[in-house]
């Protein structure tokens, strides 16, 4: 196992100046194309609305004026819809927001207007040879699921909100027992996780899992489970 490649994951870890490590959860091609489809629908809706308005304006002011306004609106819609939304506070177009995504710099900070401008101007390249062929290929092939515009502007599309699990905790133990040896952070988290999620597992599965921690509890079966829950209570109380 030591010489095998690292475990597959879709995280981008970044070390901040303070020495703190944060992890960005990068979004892949499926969810991004879904978000793009939503954006496309919204743009289409705006376009239809604009066309109706300009046809009315066209009756009043002459057909050429209406057509001119429509063309201008199309231009702005096509080139600035994404730029303005992504450079804004939420860092995401409405479609991306609907999918819980946002665009950030590689270092995790919000993107600047310049980055937004660059990554969206390069949609023209990503859209080649039609139907976003190059962009999709690049998104599938690059390690961080980036299309060419992302690479040029040094941006990532990430999930904004963390995933929250369903909590269905077991009743807490009556007494708290300190673990017999110091536990690492991941191990403490796993024990608390066990307590919080065990309600959705069958009893057999609960026992099976707590048996895996028998090195810590020094006992097996129901006794081990009870002891594990007592340790979980100790960890929980101490916080």
């Amino acid at each position, binding site marked *: *196992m030591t010489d*095998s*490649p690292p*475990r*597959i*994951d*879709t*995280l981008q870890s970044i070390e901040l100046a303070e020495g703190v490590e944060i992890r960005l*959860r*990068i*979004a*892949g*091609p*499926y*969810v991004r*194309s*879904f978000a793009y*489809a939503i954006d496309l629908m919204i743009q289409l809706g705006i376009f239809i609305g604009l066309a109706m308005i300009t046809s009315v304006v066209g009756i009043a002011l002459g057909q050429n004026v209406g057509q001119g306004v429509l063309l201008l609106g199309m231009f702005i819609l096509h080139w600035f819809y994404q730029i303005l939304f992504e450079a804004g506070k939420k860092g995401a177009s409405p479609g991306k927001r609907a*999918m*819980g995504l946002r665009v950030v710099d590689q270092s995790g900070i919000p993107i600047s207007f310049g980055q937004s401008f660059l990554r969206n101007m390069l949609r023209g390249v990503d859209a080649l*040879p*039609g*139907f*976003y*062929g190059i962009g*999709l290929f690049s998104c*599938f*092939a690059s390690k961080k*699921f980036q299309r060419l515009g992302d690479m040029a502007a040094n941006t990532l599309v990430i*999930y904004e909100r963390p*995933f929250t*699990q*369903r909590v269905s905790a077991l009743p807490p133990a009556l007494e708290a027992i300190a673990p017999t*040896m110091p*536990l*690492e952070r*991941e*191990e403490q*988290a*796993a024990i608390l*996780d*066990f307590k919080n*999620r*065990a309600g*959705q*597992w069958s009893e057999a*599965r609960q026992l*099976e*899992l*707590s048996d*895996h*921690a*028998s*090195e*810590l509890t020094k006992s097996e079966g129901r006794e081990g489970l009870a002891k594990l829950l007592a340790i979980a209570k100790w960890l929980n109380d101490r916080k």
Partner: protein
Amino acid sequence: MQLDKVQAEIRPRSPWESVDLGCALTRRYLLDIWKMWALLIWPMWALLAYVLSDWPILIIFIVWWLKPIYDRLPLYILSRAMFDARPTAKQVLLAWPKLVIKRLPFSLLMARFSPGRSLNLPVSELEGLKGTDYRHRVALLERNGGEGASMTTFAGLFLEFIVTGALAAGIMFMLPPTVANELWISIGQLFSEADGIPAEIAWFIVVIQMCAITLLEPFYVGSGFALYLNSRTLTEGWDVELAFRRMSERIHGVVNKSKSSIISLIALGFFLMAGWSTNLSAEEEAYPQAKQAVEQVMEGEEFTIHTRKVRVSQESTSNNADSHDLSWLSGFPNLGWLAKLVEIFIWFLVICVVSWIVYLVSKQLGLLANISSGPNKLERKAVASSVMGMDIRPESMSNDPASEALQAWRDGNTHLALSLLYRGSLMQFVTHRNLPVQSGDTERDCLLKVKSQPELVEREVSYFESLTQMWILEAYAQQQTDSEMVRRLCEAWPFAAVEGGRK
């Protein structure tokens, strides 16, 4: 299944995140998958196309319908590779016949149109569940990520449409214009004439569709497999199991390590008391004796802690006005003379730096121009041998540049004439009038320096000024210079012929 051999990071994920993990997983084993795909699926398609060669539209439809069969291939490879048992080509080939025929009607009819097909695929293929068991299991797994699976299916359809379009557009780009035009015409006929789709268009779509499925289907299957794993992670607590296993391993390792360190301590005790032979087979017996041995060693001369008290006189500390305790300094001899020396040295440095800065500033302001124009040896040494890339050493020039320039002018080469004059006059200024020209100076700098020399002859200065103007026009502005002016410049050469020049 051996959970500890899993090749991906197992943690609870949102459905979309698991889809992304599936993409990353597929990407790692993509070459394996495509190799086997080309070996197993394409021949199948070729056979299909041959049998149904009269009805290409039907081929499109059947190729699409048979997707569950192809899906089994990437799933077989991925599910094994995921647990560190990457199958060889031979294994896949041997397994393939069984994979194809297994429960064909079920997967092609009942399971074909389930929106969460990608998530359910592993249940029927890997777990081999049937009937009510299958339905219960699917219902359980779809509680975590079922909606993600159906959305993936829709996104997959969208992507397939996109890839098909992109491939078609790409091929259209690559085709020679005449062929592309024919294709466009027949596409146009699609809408104008009602006698069905022309055959060439249909075959074009068949090929593109096959390519699109080859490109995308592995990712769709990988996404479904990752969704399945994530769902099981959530419903069975795989991440907790893995964490517990790692914890147990660690604790086990720590306990073992502490045991072994006790044993090695005992061994050390043996080593130190070589010759001490007692029966120390049992650990309980060994422990107190080892302790005794350690104590005995600790009492030895080497381990005695020596202490020494140093008395410090009170006077020196009372001199010290500030709060820092500098009493330790009193132990040193008086170093006042050294401090004085250092002080002098620092003042010397400061004076040097200040005078250097004053020198630089005054040089910049031209205050030292008078001093440097004198017969200063240092300055003479620094005289440039070339300015603006032009060689102005006297050795490089003829004795009489004016007549040479005139000759060049007669030949019609005004550029050469002007450059000879310019170089010659610069050389005169530099070598005989001690003009402080540097190699980085421009024409303008040279002119300014010439003008700022008070002892230069007025005639020479005005000559150089008009010559510089002509030269700049000729060399940089590329303007047609007044030929008569050039001749006049040649004749008005103000410098005397110099000895030491090249004959």
